[in-house]
């Protein structure tokens, strides 16, 4: 991590799309009167999605005004969390986990693949399709090394596998997220060795998972959905 500054070139302005505005108002209403500022991270995150992966300065002011906060308070939040990008990113934003388990399993090779197929770290490729950065642990250590591309995890990578994924995405093909070496989820590499009796899954009438709001479209999380 290093000193983070707002991008030099900024767009003219920012407004939420009508759908996002409606969503934002619903988020703000979750909080008691006078505590709207609590919604700041959610709103910044949605603004980042709408803006193609980064938070612009007009967006920052727009959200500050929406939440009745001083600009500097939003500026503090946006510079504190590294998940907010302050400079434009590629259409596919590749985040390579560089923390110990991934590093031991070859994340340095993944970075090499990125350098080869995308370019230097934190710069957008010439075609505007890609940029990459190194991040701290993304919590997928079982499937190390891994990379997050936009919202999806690509796991059990090697330098070649990641290079292929990048090239496929560049051509507009879709790549299924998850382990890339044929492994099932985070089961042992040799295949599942527990809870393998399929009969235990037959009588599942528990309904949707707790917390499932029934609103998200799985496709919206696919790479390139912005």
């Amino acid at each position, binding site marked *: *991590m290093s*000193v*983070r500054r*707002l991008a030099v070139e900024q767009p003219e302005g920012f407004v939420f799309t009508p759908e996002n505005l409606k969503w934002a108002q619903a988020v703000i209403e979750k909080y008691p009167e006078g505590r709207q500022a609590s919604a700041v991270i959610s709103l910044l995150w949605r603004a980042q999605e709408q803006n193609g992966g980064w938070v612009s300065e007009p967006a920052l002011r727009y959200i500050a005004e929406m939440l009745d906060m*001083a600009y*500097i*308070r939003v*500026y503090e939040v946006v510079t*504190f969390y590294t998940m907010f990008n302050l400079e434009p990113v590629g259409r596919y934003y590749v985040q390579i986990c560089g923390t110990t388990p991934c590093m031991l399993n070859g994340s340095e090779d993944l970075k090499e693949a990125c350098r080869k197929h995308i370019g230097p770290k934190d710069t957008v490729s010439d075609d505007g399709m890609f940029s990459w950065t190194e991040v701290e642990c993304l919590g997928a250590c079982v499937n190390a090394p891994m990379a997050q591309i936009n919202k999806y995890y690509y796991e059990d990578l090697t330098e070649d596998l990641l290079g292929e994924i990048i090239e496929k995405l560049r051509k507009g093909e879709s790549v299924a997220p998850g382990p890339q070496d044929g492994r099932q989820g985070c089961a042992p590499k040799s295949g599942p060795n527990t809870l393998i009796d399929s009969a235990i899954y037959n009588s599942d009438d528990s309904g949707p998972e707790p917390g499932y709001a029934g609103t998200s479209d799985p496709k919206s999380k696919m790479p390139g959905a912005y």
Partner: protein
Amino acid sequence: MPKLIIDGNEHDFPDGITLIQACGLVGVEIPRFCFHERLSIAGNCRMCLVEVVGMPKPIASCAMSVNDLRPGPDGTPPTINTKSETTRRAQEGTMEFLLVNHPLDCPICDQGGECDLQDQAMAYGFNAGRFKDNKRAVEDKYLGPLIKTSMTRCIHCTRCVRFMTEVAGVPELGLIGRGEDAEITTYLEHGIHSNLSANIVDLCPVGALTSKPYAFQARPWELAKTPSIDVMDAVGSSIRVDSRGKEVLRILPRINDAVNEEWISDKARHVWDGLRTQRLDRPYLRKDGKLAPCTWDEAFAAIANRIKSAGAEKFGTIAGDLAAAEEMFALKTLADELGSPNIDCRQDGSKFDPTLGRATYLFNATIGGIEDADAVLLVGCDPRVEAPVLNSRILKRWKQLSGKLPVGLVGADVDLTYPYQRLGAGPETLLEIAKGGHDFAKTLKDAKKPMVILGPAACARSDGYDILTVGAKIATEIGAITDEWNGFSVLHAAAGRVAGLDLGLVPGDKGLGTADMIAAAGKGDLEVLYLLGADEIDMSDVGKAFVIYQGSHGDKGANRADVILPGAAYTEKEGTYVNTEGRAQMTARAIFPPGEAREDWTILKHLSNALGKPLPFETLQELRSKMYAAAPQLAQLDALEKADPSPIAKLASHAAKPGSDPFGLSMDDYYLSNPIARASAIMASLSAMLADAGKATGTDG
């Protein structure tokens, strides 16, 4: 009343204080950087770690309440060891980490000699540094013309951020980034838009924020420090004037809980460069249309000739905003001796009448009393400009009540840093409230300790007396005047005004007030006009009158004058000033007046000799004893005697027919409101910054 054992001694403590305050109460010093009694608790510098027996780790004493500790297993009170090995090692460790990234540039740092980090590193630090890595470097930030930044020195205590947000009410500073990359800055580095901003220089425990105009001027141990009183507004903040030789080098606040707590406005702090420039340092006499230097005797002779030929009825005197009580008393005595009833200390044209009683022109609720108020009505008042420190008291009260302090404003639409309800623009709204027909009148009536604050813009107009009367009506109507509370409060903007009213510097029988005097001078009915530091009048209106200007600065008055008598500024004389509450306080002489300039009362004394009507005192002490006989309250230095509230009811019973003009603003430019400020280059740069901010669109820095 929790009991604690601190360093082996058992004490009782009041509820709700923190360990660091408890230790302070019993004389045990705990080092600290982020903790400040008047700011919220941050707990982020970790310097105040102490050992609490039974706790696994040292405790940050600034963030631990005395009520939150458990007694020992055998029932002994909680035990705090501030000198133990554990405490010492914790503090040494914290200090070592703070110094990891702190540059060793003390020899070129302006904070050197008065630096908390320097002092505490000596007292609580480890004897050597063990970190050999490169230190971090941070870009300096632009925070306006008053604050010089050297952000590599910053230790992230966030005192400045908390001050700007909580006390100044301007949330413009923030801590961006995190960890090693954290930086203090404003949003996109604009200058800070607050007239209390320079207080963060005092708050900064290291040399990250230092005073830009004072940069590399002096070391603290070279300076003579004179406790004094500020005269830039009528709050009368306690200040310390730091001088070296013939120059005032800086002005700092002194702690005075009753008045300014420990803050002063930027104008009070940075007006000092105006004390050096545009000074009148010798008498001048206008000969053939041009001002030429002369001797004191020539000046006095010229004045005496003119006054004798004009006669007392055609002689008028106006005392200015910065005049001290002593010279006003001398002026009044001289006018009385000459038999001239034309005297006025209200050059802004306000209509206070001291014969009614003191309570009708004082801030009776007192500044400290704001912290008891539960509803505020502001009339023709912009306290953020007229009395910045007082405004921050109202903000403090608003915060104490969690934003539930109802504030109503009748007057111009201004930014007060706290939300208020704008009830109306002019006297009609005021009359409506007085009749009780307005919603806010009910709010005021329901309040236990309501305040009605009448500002200069309400009183300094031709119908000022009527407005004052309506204000008194409202105060009596809403029950603002009880045995223990008097909410009728007049906010003055001029430091000399209350003393002038106390001494009765208002027109005598058939005498002319300021406006009448100027009009009469314009028509030629008034031949001699004596201005005691009065610059806020339009000099083009005084016609062909013979103008005598006595004062410290070559400003509008001196420009027009026929005779100039050079006087002393407030840092160069012992003068009594009465603040808007009616609190008499005395300035002290930090330096001598420049050149031939003299203390103002002595000029009037010599002039009276030249006129053949010598004033009845030879020394300042004799003058004061006579002055105290005339106005005994001036002798009660620093004390505040509450004025008898009965005149307010009497005033309220008068008929009032105010006009319909909306209330304006009392000052065109806060930073250029008096002759000293107008001579100051720092004030000019602040004024320019403010003008730029007015033009800003919001996207520019």
